C-alpha cells in the first residue's frame, strides 16, 4: 500500500455512481472504478461517448458525490467543492453577464487579488489564448471556439494544483488546438499540477499525457487499461506524432479503445434494446 508515501493528488477507490432515472430504475454509470493520479502527473482519459468520463470529473471536483467508494484529493476526502481544483466544463459555463476580461479575472478577484493586478494578468492570459482584442465582448458575441478559450484562460489563471479538463479543445481548429496544447504544457511544466484531461482525440491524449486511461463502455463503466506514455519531455505537440514510439503507443491504446467503442455502439443499437427502458 502507498499509505506511507505522500498521498497522490487524486485517488478514487472503488467508486460507484448511480443515477436514478425517471422510470425509477437506477442507472449505474460507474462501478468499482479505481483511479490514482500522482502529484504532477498528466493523465488523459479516453473512452466511448457516454461512458462516464464527465461523471468521473464531477466526482473529483466535488460537484457530485459517489454512491459508494471514496474520492480523495491530496489525501483529503472530497466533500463539497475542493479548493485548488480547476475544472473546465464540457458545456459553456462562463458567465454571460461578464465581459471576457471580467470572466477571466473572476478567479483572482474571487480570491481577493487587487483589481488592477487581476485585470493585468487576465489580459495576459487572454492574449495567451489568442483572444486579444476581444476583452470587452460578452460571451454571446463570441464564437463557440472563443468561448472555450475564455473558459481555458479562466481556469488556468488560477494556477490550480489539480486541473480537470473536459474536452477543452474540441471546438478548436487543429492549429489553434496545437497552440493551446503547447500553452497548456508550458504552464504544466512550470507549476506541475496534476491534470486529468478528457478527450476524444487519441493523438492529443498521447501527445500531452504521462498516462492514458481507457474506460470501458457504460453502463457500469470502469477502467479497462492504463498506459504509460514514456515519450521524452518537453514535447512539441505538432511534431511528436511522427515519432515511431508515438505510433506504437497509439496502436496499443487504440486496440483497447476500439473494442470498447464497438461494444458501446453495438449495445446501443441492438434492436432488442429498442423496447427496453434502459
Amino acid at each position, binding site marked *: 500500500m502507498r499509505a506511507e508515501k505522500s498521498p497522490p493528488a487524486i485517488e478514487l477507490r472503488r467508486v460507484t455512481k448511480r443515477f436514478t432515472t425517471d422510470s425509477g430504475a437506477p442507472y449505474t454509470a460507474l462501478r468499482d472504478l479505481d483511479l490514482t493520479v500522482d502529484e504532477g502527473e498528466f493523465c488523459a482519459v479516453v473512452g466511448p461517448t457516454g461512458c462516464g468520463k464527465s461523471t468521473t470529473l464531477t466526482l473529483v*471536483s466535488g460537484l457530485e458525490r459517489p454512491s459508494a467508494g471514496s474520492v480523495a484529493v491530496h489525501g483529503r476526502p472530497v466533500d463539497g*467543492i475542493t479548493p485548488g481544483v480547476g475544472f473546465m*466544463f464540457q458545456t*459553456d*459555463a*462562463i458567465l454571460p453577464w461578464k465581459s471576457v476580461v471580467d470572466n477571466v479575472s*473572476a478567479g483572482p478577484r*474571487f480570491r481577493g487579488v487587487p483589481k488592477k493586478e487581476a485585470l493585468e494578468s487576465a489580459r495576459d492570459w487572454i492574449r495567451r489564448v489568442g483572444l486579444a482584442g476581444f476583452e470587452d465582448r460578452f460571451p454571446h458575441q463570441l464564437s463557440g471556439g472563443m468561448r472555450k478559450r475564455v473558459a481555458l484562460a*479562466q481556469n488556468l489563471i488560477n494556477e490550480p494544483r489539480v486541473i480537470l479538463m473536459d474536452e477543452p479543445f474540441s471546438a478548436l481548429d487543429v492549429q489553434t488546438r496545437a497552440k493551446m496544447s503547447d500553452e497548456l504544457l508550458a504552464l504544466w511544466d512550470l507549476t506541475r499540477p496534476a491534470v486529468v484531461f478528457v478527450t476524444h482525440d487519441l493523438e492529443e491524449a498521447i501527445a500531452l499525457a504521462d498516462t492514458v486511461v481507457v474506460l470501458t463502455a457504460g453502463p457500469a463503466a470502469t477502467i479497462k487499461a492504463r498506459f504509460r506514455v514514456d515519450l521524452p519531455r518537453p514535447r512539441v505537440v505538432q511534431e511528436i506524432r511522427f515519432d515511431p514510439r508515438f505510433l506504437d503507443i497509439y496502436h496499443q491504446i487504440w486496440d483497447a479503445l476500439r473494442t470498447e467503442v464497438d461494444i458501446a455502439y453495438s449495445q446501443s443499437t441492438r434492436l432488442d434494446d429498442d423496447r427496453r427502458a434502459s
Partner: protein
Amino acid sequence: MTAQEAQVEVTAVESAHRRAARRHRVLVHLTQLAVLVVVLGGWQLTVQDNPRSVILYGVPSGILGRLTTWVTEGTAIGSLGDQIATTLEEALIGFAIGTALGIVCGVALGRVRFLSEVFGPFIKVLNAIPRIVLGAVFVLAFGLGIESKILLVIVLVFFGVFFNAFQGTREVDRNFIANAGILGASRWQVTSQVVLPSAFTWIIASLHVSFGFALIGAIVGEFLGATSGLGVLIKQAEGTFDANGVWAAMVIMAVVALAAEWLITRLENRLLRWRPAQLAGPDL
C-alpha cells in the same frame, strides 16, 4: 468591389432598416391613438346624454374638466402637487423597503435550503392573509402617520418580489454556480456575482406589478385615515358622488406610475446590457 463600396452598401441597408423602423413606430402610435379614441369616445358618447350615468360613471370631458380645475385652482384639501407628493412619498418609501426585503428574503431562502424549509410555510401563510385588513391593525399600532401607510405598502409589495426573487434564485443555471465555486468564489460572492445578475430579470419583472400595488397600498392606507394624499381625494370624490373626481385621481396615479415604469425599464436596460439584443425581445 472595394471595401469602400461594401461599406456604402452596408450603410444603405442599415438606413433602409432605420426607415422601416420609423414607419413601424408611426404605425404603432397611430394604432394606440385609435384604441384611445374608440374607448374614450365610446364612453363619452354612451354616457353624456344620460345625466344619471354621468353622475355614477363619470364622463371623459368631465374628468378633463376636473383635472384642469385641480391643476389651476388646487383641490379641496390643498394643491394637487401636495397630494401627489404625499402619496408618492408613502408609495416610494414602502416600495423601496418592500422590494429590498423581498429580494433579501427571496435570495436568502432560495440559497439556504434550511431557511426555506423552516420559513417557507410561514411566508405562505402570511401571503394568504388578506393584507388589506392589516391596514387597520397598522393604524392601531403605529397611528395615522406615514408609518402605517408605508407598512401597508410594504406588505403588499413584499410577496410579489419575494416569490420572484426566490424562484429566480432557484432557476440560476447550476453550471454557473458550480463554475464560480470552482474558481474560488465564496458563498457570498456566488450570491452577488452569479445569483443576483441571473435572477435579475425575475426581480425586475416583479417590480412592474409591485409598483402598482405600492400605489394601491398608499391609497388604501389613506382611506383608513389621512389628511392629504390622492387617497383622500378619491375618498372625498366618492363621498360626494363625484365619479369624475375619482377617475381624475386615477388618471394622475396612472401618469405617476408610467413615470416610474419608465425608470424601471431604463434600469432594466442598463443592467441587461450583456444580453443579445434579440433575446431581450419586444420591450414593454
